């Protein structure tokens, strides 16, 4: 018996080389150690891995040494006997050993072949894989194109498609909902509060793609918006472009940012307050040198509020007789005096003891309303918005003290109507005639005319004539008393002409100014901070005549409103008080309605 071992190596190209060794004994040791009969060099094989013994001509046995194992016909074993004729497939590490009879002499043949990767050295690390970014990050190109596609789709393709496809956004539906959502990612900034209702659909204003918002679109809603002034005045007063200004104008024109559009001043998408420009420079451009460019103007040049703004010129009533009273603007510098037809000393009402005594005589409910003294708010009530002061009304603000009640007897109190001298006379006449009638009726009640004697009839006739004559006399006397120098009317009113129309004394009409500065906006409410008393601006306590104009001077305003650089945070730009677009005022020609820019330009250019 002998053991024949054949190492088989498959060469590239299908060639097979066989290295045979014959062992003249009946067992061979298998292992990685150099003293083994069959040397299996791979590191997965033990030093002395196993021993293969031929027990008889037909039988063999494999024994694994130590804690090694072998696989025989697929089974992991330490030891296994098997028939040589049947053959066996033994695996030790990467080697496959096939046992079969060598010939008919009872020899055993072991064919050994390396069936797995021969070496444990992993040779797969290609330079590229090890040193590149592979496994660290996805390919740049893939990321780039993915991002590019997503952004173009979400931020460009979808909004553009929806602009053309979406129905009006007030119709419920997915596409309109989507249009709102996606158009928001184009929204450059917060909408102004006045346009907040237009946020849902950009197409409300952006009617045509790649075309600036047109003035027509603005005027669609702002149809009664007026221009700033007459077009010829506007054209004449616009500053002449020269040097840098001309260059800038041509740059703006070149960049397609034309002047004279609604959008030249009103920038949307700049937050809640953004659409009304607060930049005084826009006004100063023309008003700085207005008299040079527009010689007809009566306006004084203005460059800022703190240094170059004229003193206020309140609207002053010089003659209360005209109706409506004509107002003359007189500068506060000239200390204007008003002729409003009213006699009213502020100082007396605010301080005098007589006022306090009078208040003390009032009924309880009125006493609690006024308190011990009068103050400004007792007569001057702010309007609903708190901006201006409500007009003074005699019945509401004066008559609690200045009662027009007259009493002929202790039980009868009559209120005379205010502001209607003819009515006053009628009321008195009615009163005295009624008195006379009652007198007559009281004397001869129940006796009929025909029952009386001729004498009595004559006496009654005389009495009657007397009664009516007395009534008329009483009326005249009362009228004369009321309207006299010491009468109740003359406390507040002047008597222009003692022998006026219809035999009644004519009182000077009262024309109280409602708005001293009609071209400026002022809010009392906004100035009522920190319990600021009225008299800090209106010098009422020292005014003994209603001719005094109690408007503060510009100096007073400038104490807080100072637009010099770095001075104060209180708004002092033009639009704090003034509006650009004209608002219709009585007795003055209004500026024309706003027109689309192109139109306005041609109007302005025609002389």
């Amino acid at each position, binding site marked *: 018996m002998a053991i024949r071992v054949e190492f088989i190596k498959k060469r590239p190209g299908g060639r097979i080389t066989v290295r045979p060794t014959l062992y003249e004994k009946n067992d061979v040791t298998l292992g990685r150690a150099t003293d083994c009969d069959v040397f299996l060099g791979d590191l997965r094989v033990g030093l002395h891995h196993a021993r293969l013994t031929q027990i008889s001509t037909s039988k063999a046995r494999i024994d694994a040494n130590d804690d090694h194992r072998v696989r025989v016909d697929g089974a992991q074993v330490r030891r296994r006997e098997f028939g040589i004729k049947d053959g066996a497939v033994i695996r030790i590490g990467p080697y496959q050993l096939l046992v079969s009879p060598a010939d008919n002499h009872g020899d055993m043949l072991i064919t050994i072949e390396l069936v797995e990767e021969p070496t444990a050295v*992993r040779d797969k690390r290609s330079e590229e894989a090890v040193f590149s970014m592979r*496994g660290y990050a996805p390919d740049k190109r893939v990321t780039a194109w993915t991002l590019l596609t997503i952004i173009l789709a979400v*931020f*460009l393709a979808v909004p553009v498609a929806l602009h053309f496809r979406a129905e009006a956004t007030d119709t419920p539906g997915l596409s309109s909902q989507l249009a709102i959502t996606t158009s928001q990612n184009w929204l*450059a900034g917060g909408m102004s509060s006045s346009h907040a209702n237009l946020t849902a659909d950009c197409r409300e204003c*952006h009617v045509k793609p790649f075309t600036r918002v047109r003035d027509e679109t603005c005027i669609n809603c702002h149809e009664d918006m007026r221009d700033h002034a007459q077009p010829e005045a506007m054209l004449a007063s616009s500053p002449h472009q020269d040097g840098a200004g001309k260059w800038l104008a041509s740059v703006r024109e070149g*960049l397609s*940012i034309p002047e004279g559009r609604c959008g030249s001043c009103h920038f949307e998408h700049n937050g809640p307050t953004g659409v009304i420009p607060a930049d005084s420079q826009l006004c100063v451009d023309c008003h700085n040198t207005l008299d040079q460019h527009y010689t007809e103007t009566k306006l004084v040049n203005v460059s800022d509020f703190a240094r170059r703004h004229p003193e206020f010129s309140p609207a002053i009533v010089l003659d209360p007789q005209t109706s409506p009273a004509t107002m003359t603007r007189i500068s506060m510098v000239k200390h204007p005096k008003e002729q409003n037809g009213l006699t009213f000393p502020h100082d007396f009402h605010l301080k005098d003891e007589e006022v306090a005594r009078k208040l003390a005589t009032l009924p309880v409910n009125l006493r609690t309303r006024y308190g011990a003294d009068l103050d400004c708010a007792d007569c001057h009530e702010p309007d609903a918005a708190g901006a201006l002061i409500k007009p003074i009304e005699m019945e509401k603000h004066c008559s609690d003290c200045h009662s027009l009640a007259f009493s002929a007897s202790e039980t009868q109190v009559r209120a005379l109507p205010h502001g209607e001298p003819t009515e006053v006379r009628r009321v008195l006449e009615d009163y005295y005639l009624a008195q006379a009638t009652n007198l007559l009726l009281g004397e001869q009640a129940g006796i009929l005319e025909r029952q009386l004697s001729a004498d009595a009839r004559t006496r009654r006739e005389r009495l009657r004539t007397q009664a009516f004559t007395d009534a008329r006399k009483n009326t005249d006397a009362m009228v004369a008393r009321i309207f006299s120098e010491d009468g109740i009317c003359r406390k507040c009113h002047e008597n222009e002409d003692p022998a006026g129309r219809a035999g009644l004394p004519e009182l000077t009409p009262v024309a109280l100014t409602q708005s001293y500065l009609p071209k400026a906006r002022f809010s009392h409410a906004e100035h009522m901070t920190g319990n600021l008393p009225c008299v800090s601006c209106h010098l009422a306590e020292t005014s003994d005549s209603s001719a005094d104009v109690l408007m503060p001077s510009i100096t007073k305003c400038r104490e807080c409103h100072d637009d010099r650089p770095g001075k104060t945070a209180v708004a002092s730009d033009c639009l704090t008080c003034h509006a650009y677009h004209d608002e219709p005022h009585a007795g003055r020609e209004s500026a024309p309605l706003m027109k689309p820019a192109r139109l306005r330009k041609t109007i302005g250019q025609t002389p």
Partner: protein
Amino acid sequence: MARNDHMRASGLPISHEGFLAHKRYRYLKLAVVVTLVAIVVYAIADVRVRPNGGTWYGYILGTVSALLILWLMMLGIRKRAMTPGNWSLKGWTSAHVYLGSSLLVLATLHTGFQFGLNVHTLAYVIMVIVILSGFIGVYYYTAVPRKMSDNRAHRSQKDMLDAIRALDHELNEAARPLDQRYLREVTNAIRKTKVKPGLFTPVSSAHRQCATTRAAIRLRKAVAKAEPDMRRPLEAVTAILERKAALLLRTRRHIRSKTLLQLWLYFHVPLSFALLAALTAHIISVFFYW
């Protein structure tokens, strides 16, 4: 041009000036001038009603910035063709870095400091990230290559891998006489060694956890205790393991350096394309709804 001792075969001088100092900081100077001019004009420009991308100056800044972005992106095409001279790739790169940095100022002025959750600010934010990632790139380009060449010690990448492979073969041979209990360490060192560290694993900890390093340490300890006939082969194997561990450390440092040189580009380049898309959407959208 002054005669230069260092000449290329082509006759052109060899410059040792880096791309940052190119032509005595020519493009740095240009970028500073451009930036200062932009800031000064922004301060004095008569723009109505407030600084904004839609004013005349906003349009100018926007146009300049957009063209600049397109030109900056051209580097990707330009770098594939190396030419010497005034418009050398180095000069181009120098201009790319400095003018790209000035874009940060130009585009910020273009916004008029108005930001929001919209496509316009999206484009701005992407641009800022691209520029900042570029700064990181510039930093690594100046700091890493020297370290890298010191570490590499004239070995090419292929040399490194070949050396590792050769050491594995050596190990395979040298480990044959070893006893089974040592053998596991060696096979692990051969089979389970991962050359490339994880992106977020520091090189030092990748080295500590490496199968080769661990095998080297364990077998070094085992040498002292081994039976006399095992000692010599064990000694030999351990020596190879230690050489391999040292080589692996260098290789990993090299990989890390290369990663640092490239990783920023994985943000810079794709985000540049994202910027191109956002910029397109920005420009079209503002004129679509003019």
